[in-house]
């Protein structure tokens, strides 16, 4: 990451009438970083990103994007960034290649349509009307349009929402390519696996405030270290006989007495002791799973909500 941040936001606020959508948030994004804004619908992610894209004026605070003020230098900023919107459309009868050529003409510099079409696997569809494209092809075209001016900074607002898992994986691959090209990407999502897989850093946003920020790993480690150990035993155990294993925070035994779940702050140590105890009792292990806390767990702990609420 370079010293000079690509995006710097300080005390950013946005209100719609009496509704405060963004309540004074601060963050910075460095060059080449993939930065995720993670939160449920209505958390303030889209308002934040649209202020930074120059689409909406802020109500308060400061924002600088590529050295431009998004409120006062909209056109110069828009010439330098790429944007993939959450909900957008193109004329039904525009052909794929025509769309790229048309939008390319709006910028001071643009990449060739052929190059982008091949890269986004749309070359075969170049003469197809927009209305005939599948959801995945439309989203790939949206990404191609976001890249048409060869931007160093991209805003991707929920780029995989509503797409099937296969298409989502394809889009993830494309975002990883952008990351490999050292482009800075700001990504909003409510898919945990997307943030964990793609983002260098994540800000968890809820009710217009950033409630936590860091690398996905850092955030997971903040989750009260509640790893989950799941064991399936060869024969039923008695709940009364279960000991207090080291670092175990909570123990649950399934109805059949064979499924044992233990939450632990140091799962490796707890697991070793559990295996020893079961072995001494002549119980065989049928299955063992160790689950680290996910960003979803972090989010639930911090906000008391689920991400897709």
């Amino acid at each position, binding site marked *: 990451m370079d010293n000079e941040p690509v995006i710097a936001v300080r005390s950013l606020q946005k209100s719609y009438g009496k509704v405060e959508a963004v309540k004074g948030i601060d963050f910075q994004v460095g060059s080449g970083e993939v930065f995720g804004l993670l939160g449920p619908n209505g958390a303030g992610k889209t308002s934040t990103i649209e202020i930074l894209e120059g689409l909406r004026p802020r109500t308060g605070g400061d924002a600088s994007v590529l050295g431009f003020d998004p409120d006062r230098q909209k*056109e110069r900023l828009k010439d330098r960034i790429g*944007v993939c919107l959450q*909900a*957008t*459309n193109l004329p039904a009868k*525009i052909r794929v290649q025509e769309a790229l050529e048309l939008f390319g*003409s709006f910028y001071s510099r643009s990449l060739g349509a052929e190059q982008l079409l091949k890269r986004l696997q749309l070359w075969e569809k170049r003469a197809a009307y927009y209305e005939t494209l599948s959801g995945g092809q439309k989203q790939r075209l949206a990404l191609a349009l976001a890249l048409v001016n060869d931007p160093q900074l991209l805003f991707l607002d929920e780029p995989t929402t509503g797409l099937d898992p296969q298409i989502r994986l394809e889009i993830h691959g494309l975002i990883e390519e952008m990351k490999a090209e050292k482009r800075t990407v700001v990504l909003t999502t409510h898919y945990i696996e997307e943030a964990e897989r793609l983002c260098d850093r994540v800000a968890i946003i809820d009710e217009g405030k950033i409630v936590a920020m860091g690398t996905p790993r850092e955030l997971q480690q903040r989750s009260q270290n509640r790893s989950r150990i799941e064991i399936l035993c060869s024969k039923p155990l008695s709940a009364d006989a279960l000991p207090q294993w080291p670092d175990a925070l909570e123990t649950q035994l399934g109805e059949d007495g064979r499924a044992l779940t233990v939450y632990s702050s140091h799962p490796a140590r707890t697991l070793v002791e559990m295996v020893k105890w079961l072995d001494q009792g002549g119980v065989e292990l049928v299955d063992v799973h160790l689950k680290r806390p996910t960003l979803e767990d972090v989010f639930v702990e911090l906000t008391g909500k689920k991400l897709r609420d």
Partner: protein
Amino acid sequence: MKTYLAVITMDIKLALRLRAVIFFNYLFPLIFFFTFATVLKGDSGAMTFVVTMSVTLGVLGSGFFGAGIRAIQERELGILRRYKVTPITPTPLLVGSMVTGWIIFIPYIVLLLLMAHYIYAMPLPQHFFELLAFISLGLIAFRALGLVIASVANTMQEGTILVQLFYFPMLLLSGATFPSEKFPRVMQILHNFIPATYLVQGMKNMMLRGQGMAEKENLLAVVVMLLTILGGGLISMKLFRWEKEEKIRGSAKLWVLAVLAPFFVMGIWNWWRS
């Protein structure tokens, strides 16, 4: 300039790919033309009326539906939102809409006049190119009016109501579909306040009386239409909205009246004279 060219080229391609555009710009007025022309064949005065009616139908359709309703549709469908994230401003989109309408419409006018002349023996206007220029001004003025309606309508439903409120009175009271000389007194008064009246009257003057655009009464119509283009263009730019979520205040709808002000003044003037 490359943005303007790209927008206009794309607008033309898109318009020609839409069946509705072809129907309302060409087929619908041509059906009227052939139906009436077949009945009134041989009467050159009546043929002028038929041509004027067909042109007015096309101009109003192009202005209100081709420019106005289409602009609302593009906003409602989220198409303008995609433009909003680029450095483009509303100006190329609005200019593109006006120029595209003109490029698509002018061949139809030429075709209509030539058919009226060669098939139905209507004399060609003495100032053929001035007539084309006059109709062009009318077309662009009504497209500007259509774009202002699109700017002040918050929803497609609102836009449709506004368009119908303008379209039918203009069609019925301008003298394009019924001879205005036979209107009762009240309709005669209203006739003076209808913007399309000046387009219809100017075309009749140029086709029946051999007048050019420089004649006093036509010149006034030219000035009024130029003012509409200018006013409509500026107001459309001022009130332009990229997204359907951006609503406009009810009071801003009064801007439509500002665009109609030149016609109102003309109406008062003609009423006072009569």
